[in-house]
């Protein structure tokens, strides 16, 4: 990113001068890197400012095709990013939202999913890995269910893309969204993957420069995909930074990262569950490296603050999944998120920190 701002800082797809040419090449190379990382083609990669914008793009563009009474199926464990855009769309289009419920062990109830996804379903949009529970959802099966009834399947992969190898063809989804900042990349850059066939049929998201082919005072025609969906000056440095993060992750290997995550998660679950008064909110198996829990007698914010004084950063609150917390009867949870930079010693320090907090609040 520094190199870009110092040596290649110009707008893309506009200037004929060398600097602009360099910027364009770097930006499009970043698109190639992202595409290859998730097993897609470059023209299927749209740069957005994050998962939230990716889903808003879909809610708006796909939303135009909805008729009153059409159904959108989500799950009960959605992040607000994959919930609120659909609520607003449903209001506007008189569409109906349905939610796949959870089983008692925090997995999606696939039997119920089968009943909910019907001929009136037009969109199925689910989170791949829950940012609260850690549950990894069977998105391949959900995509198949969606396709059986002619619906499209969207995957919110904000948690999964950073933590496991992802291939969009194997997942079989039509759209997939993720963010740079959760995978060592910069904030303010994200990705929407969509199959070329569907992207070509969709209306643009925003209108203006860069996304047009021909403009007269009366009307305009649109650029090809993916540029049709990238109105205005894009976050070129962000895209380059994201590609650098991907190169770094791939240098380590996504399989290795997943293995490391699993090792830490198993260790953390084993030791956390031995603490008195703890309730782990999430499944034991089939899960990623976020662990949410509650402690009796200690509010999540208080635990977080006590741990912060020992330089341990955990998240406290509803983690942008308020309906899920309400459903589970919780005002908030504590959440530990582990990644490739964490170690077994970090977890030992966490356990010691929690014990200390329990002494303070006893």
């Amino acid at each position: 990113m520094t190199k870009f701002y110092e040596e290649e800082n110009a707008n893309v797809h506009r200037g004929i001068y060398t600097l602009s040419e360099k910027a364009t090449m770097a930006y499009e190379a970043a698109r190639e890197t992202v595409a290859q990382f998730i097993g897609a083609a470059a023209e299927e990669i749209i740069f957005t400012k994050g998962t939230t914008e990716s889903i808003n793009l879909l809610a708006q563009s796909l939303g135009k095709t909805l008729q009153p009474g059409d159904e959108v199926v989500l799950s009960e464990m959605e992040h607000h990013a994959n919930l609120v855009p659909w609520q607003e769309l449903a209001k506007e289009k008189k569409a109906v939202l349905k939610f796949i419920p959870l089983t008692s062990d925090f997995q999606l109830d696939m039997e119920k999913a089968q009943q909910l996804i019907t001929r009136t379903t037009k969109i199925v949009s689910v989170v791949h890995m829950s940012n609260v529970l850690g549950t990894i959802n069977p998105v391949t099966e959900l995509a198949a269910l969606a396709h059986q009834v002619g619906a499209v399947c969207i995957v919110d992969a904000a948690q999964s893309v950073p933590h496991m190898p992802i291939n969009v063809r194997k997942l079989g989804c039509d759209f997939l969204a993720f963010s740079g900042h959760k995978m060592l990349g910069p904030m303010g850059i994200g990705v929407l993957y969509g199959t070329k066939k569907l992207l070509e049929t969709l209306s643009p998201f925003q209108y203006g420069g860069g996304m047009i082919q021909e403009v007269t005072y009366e009307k305009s025609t649109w650029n090809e995909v993916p540029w049709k969906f990238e109105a205005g000056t894009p976050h070129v440095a962000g895209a380059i930074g994201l590609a650098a993060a991907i190169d770094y992750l791939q240098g380590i290997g996504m399989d290795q990262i997943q293995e490391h995550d699993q090792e830490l998660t198993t260790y953390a679950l084993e030791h956390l569950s031995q603490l008195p008064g703890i309730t782990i909110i999430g499944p034991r198996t089939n899960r990623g490296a976020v662990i949410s829990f509650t402690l009796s007698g200690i509010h999540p914010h208080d635990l977080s603050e006590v741990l912060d004084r020992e330089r341990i950063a955990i998240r406290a609150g509803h983690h942008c999944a308020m309906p899920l917390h309400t459903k589970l009867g919780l005002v908030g949870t504590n959440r530990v998120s582990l990644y490739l930079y964490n170690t077994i010693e970090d977890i030992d320090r966490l356990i010691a920190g929690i014990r200390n907090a329990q002494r303070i609040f006893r």
Partner: protein
Amino acid sequence: MKNGNLQETLVEQNNLISRPLTEEEELYKENILDHYKHPRNAEILPTYTHHHRELNPLCGDEVEIFMNLVGGTIESASFQGKGCAISQAAASMLMEQIKGKKMQDIQKLAPWDIYNLLGIPISHTRSKCALLPLKTIQEGLKSWH
């Protein structure tokens, strides 16, 4: 300004970095914990003239306040609530503070008064917890039950 480094002082003032509490702050912390574990006036008054409930959706803190005013003076006050130590202790401490005070004086209380009452550094994020009880009281005073 413990040391001459402006940068460090600013960071400290803004609580951008966590630091161990000073001895004096430790005493305040003990007091907060005491109020949290043993809240004072945590009940519903049998009769009250003013009543209000506020939520902090970010952390799920909840404070409900009951006040009985006679001629512009808060004769008695009580609260119910749930949430973190900061919000609940602040509510408990404020109940003791506002009793016998003139309504106008309570309306004049500012965030700074709450921070002084609590006596420990309150970060930007947690200011919402700390100020929730005051907000509940001040909103409650605006409307009669």
